[in-house]
């Protein structure tokens, strides 16, 4: 086991993937709890498709991918929030509209410029080779910002997640905090989709939250538990993908799926102490 870890760390691209992956997994787990409870988890999926379109355009223009993807996905997040609020269309059909639209634009842009090649495959399913050291710096900065904002706004995020009408009535600016949540989600998705791929990134948001809610009975312990699960699954997944030479994103999702199954089984035994 030690040999595997030493040999993993001897590859710079693996070390980069470990650093960025850990931070992204942590951020995604924190935001995921709130998004899942607010029934917003499909927003993550919608945004990852918008991210695919943005990456396709960035590669056609030959620019630094994050510089294009970050503003485009944030704009997408605002659009999704607005469409969810407007009540003219139900939230899930609005999400479907935006995500398939963005996917189609992305495919068109790629086929008109470089043609369908390994790039497309990497965008869809992720690649640990895709990160330059410049990307790593930007990703670390974004992740740290997300972490700090989440911790500072923790109590507000709880209030807005649990009961929007009460929070609004007692003077909490719910639009502001919903927007903060959307922006943070957009940032995490843009950073994470390089490793996980746009088809799999939303699993990082959904799985740890759902898994920890099977056993935890307090919001704070759900947050802590899903952070731990998310980071452990990410590391296990990266090791698995190295050993089996499998795609990293899929390996990480498989680990999450296994942990979910284990927790599901545990939750059937009522003797587990419910004090978490």
């Amino acid at each position, binding site marked *: 086991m030690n040999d595997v870890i030493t040999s993993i760390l001897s590859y710079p691209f693996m070390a980069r993937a470990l650093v960025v992956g850990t931070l992204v997994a942590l951020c995604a787990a924190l935001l995921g709890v709130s998004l899942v409870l607010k029934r917003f988890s499909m927003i993550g999926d919608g945004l990852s498709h918008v991210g695919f379109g943005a990456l396709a355009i960035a590669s056609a223009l030959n620019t630094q991918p994050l510089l294009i993807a970050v503003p485009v996905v944030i704009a997408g997040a605002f659009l999704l929030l607005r469409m969810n609020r407007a009540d003219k269309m139900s939230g899930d059909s609005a999400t479907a509209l935006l995500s398939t639209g963005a996917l189609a634009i992305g495919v068109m842009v790629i086929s008109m410029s470089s043609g369908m090649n390994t790039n497309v495959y990497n965008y869809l399913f992720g690649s640990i080779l895709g990160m330059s050291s410049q990307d790593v710096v930007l990703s670390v900065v974004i992740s740290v910002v997300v972490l700090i904002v989440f911790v500072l*706004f923790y*109590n507000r995020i709880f209030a807005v997640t*649990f*009961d929007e*009408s*009460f929070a609004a009535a007692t003077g909490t600016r719910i639009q502001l905090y919903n927007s903060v949540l959307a922006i943070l989600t957009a940032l995490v998705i843009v950073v994470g989709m390089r490793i996980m791929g746009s088809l799999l990134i939303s699993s990082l948001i959904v799985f740890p939250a759902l898994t920890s809610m099977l056993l935890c009975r307090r919001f704070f312990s759900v947050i802590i538990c899903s952070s731990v699960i998310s980071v452990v699954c990410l590391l296990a997944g990266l090791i698995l993908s190295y050993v089996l030479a499998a795609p990293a994103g899929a390996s990480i999702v498989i680990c999450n799926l296994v942990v979910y199954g284990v927790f599901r089984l545990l939750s059937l035994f009522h003797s587990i102490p419910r004090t978490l």
Partner: protein
Amino acid sequence: MSLITCENLSYAYDNVVICDQLNFQVEDGDYLCIVGENGAGKSTLVKGLLHLKKPAGGQLLYGDGLRADEIGYLPQQTQIQKDFPASVQEVVLSGCLNRLGLRPFFTAAEKEIARQNMEALEILDLKDACYRQLSGGQQQRVLLARALCATKKLVLLDEPVAGLDPALTQTMYDYIYKVNRKMGITVIMVSHDLEAALRFSTRILQIGHRQLFFGTPEEYRKSPQYRMLVQSRNARHVRLPGTEKGDSDE
């Protein structure tokens, strides 16, 4: 000065008037019940009183140093809350959010306020329990404790006994009565339960797209508005516990 004064107040959605000609006052220590048919504009008025909806006309004035964000609100339960993983303490403490200002975290002072309110509503022994595993009555007490954390003067309760069985309903009314009389908190309650409204409240407001009645329960019992509301409910075969025969018969 009255805690709340409404003068010719009206609310509208997209220029369609939902309710207007509202003229009533809420005094310190009052227990005001807002009654009316479904769709009479009660929920709109609640939103208005909380400043979540702007008046279409007239004036809504707060007195005695009351601020809009210092009204303890007990909303109707949402689907999200029914399976929400949170402890009782976490939920109650979130009521102190309007005391934070720009601070990010709660201090011992806020935790003490939450403790006192849990004690007053006798849920202190449940403070580490999971909210979603409580009974309906206990959940409402938790939300009432949270509302008390947000205010020093006034709580606004939107159908606080909806979905509770008769025994739990009675207990909930007892707690609300205690909040009003012992803790000296002014109560505004939206209710379907005319009988309880007449028994506990000090003021009744009936609306049906406009103000139909405002006054004491004694006056209300004798009023034609009361008789009409009871009749229309009986016509729809809604059993009204404790309604005197004389009121519903011709």
